[in-house]
């Protein structure tokens, strides 16, 4: 467990929670990224406008961090380009079919005591664990 970073994880998690509360209290929306992203593609007008603004906020966060912090943002690629395309397709298709991802179901749904979000969170976690076991330890596909 040499990579374990509990303090920054808790602080970062609290930021995410705070973001979700501000969004719900201010605009009455669930800060679920796959829903916001899917809606930004499929909706029009004001419904599209606020979604694009939120997504811009995510990008601005990276630029702000890069500007203000001396430590770079680390991105360790975990799969070959072919597998990343498959992963992206599955994440895009799956989150829309299942009405949410780690944020909408995980962070927001659980706080609403939603049965659907509990079930979805347990399911994607379980399949994540199984997939990593299969790809890393049975097939040894990691890069």
């Amino acid at each position: 467990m040499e990579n374990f970073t509990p303090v920054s994880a808790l602080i970062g998690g609290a930021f995410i929670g705070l973001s979700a509360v501000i969004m719900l209290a201010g605009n009455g929306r669930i800060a679920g990224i796959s829903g916001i992203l899917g809606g930004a593609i499929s909706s029009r007008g004001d419904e599209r406008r606020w979604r694009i603004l939120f997504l811009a906020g995510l990008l601005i966060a990276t630029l702000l961090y890069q500007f203000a912090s001396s430590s770079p943002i680390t991105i360790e690629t975990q799969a070959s380009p072919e597998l990343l395309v498959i992963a992206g397709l599955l994440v895009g298709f799956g989150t829309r079919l299942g009405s949410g991802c780690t944020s909408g179901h995980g962070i927001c749904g659980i706080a609403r005591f939603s049965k659907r979000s509990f079930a979805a969170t347990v399911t994607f976690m379980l399949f994540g664990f199984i997939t990593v076991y299969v790809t890393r330890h049975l097939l040894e596909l990691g890069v």
Partner: protein
Amino acid sequence: MSSVKEQNSHDGMFAHSAVTLVSGVLFGLGLIISGMVNPGKVIGFLDLAGDWDPSLIFVMGGGVTVTTSTFWLVLRRERPLFERKFFLPTKADLDGRLLMGAALFGIGWGIGGLCPGPAITALATLDPSVVLFVGAMLLGMVLQNLVAE
């Protein structure tokens, strides 16, 4: 009178947008600070049989603690500050779509170590692997939209 009304709706619009933008930036910063923008960190959590990194539990724990302790208070209000109503999911029962979708998402998450929030946030680094993943993810969303119609 009409100019006052216009001014109010203008202020409301500004506040609405400011809330959205601040919320997006905070969300992104949370993902960066917690290390979740790094797919290596996520796989470190999902790899129970490897060199396990439990950090993601603390990210979820921090996030859920804040939301669970505040959402119920927020939802006691009649409406949010800058909208006419709360927009909440209406479905209550489990169904095949939900579980199948979550399973497919979990498989993709396990392969790439990226979910939608971190992927969009990390897109601004222009890392080629993230750009590729996001392109495929958007395509997956469009495909689901087509299948659903």
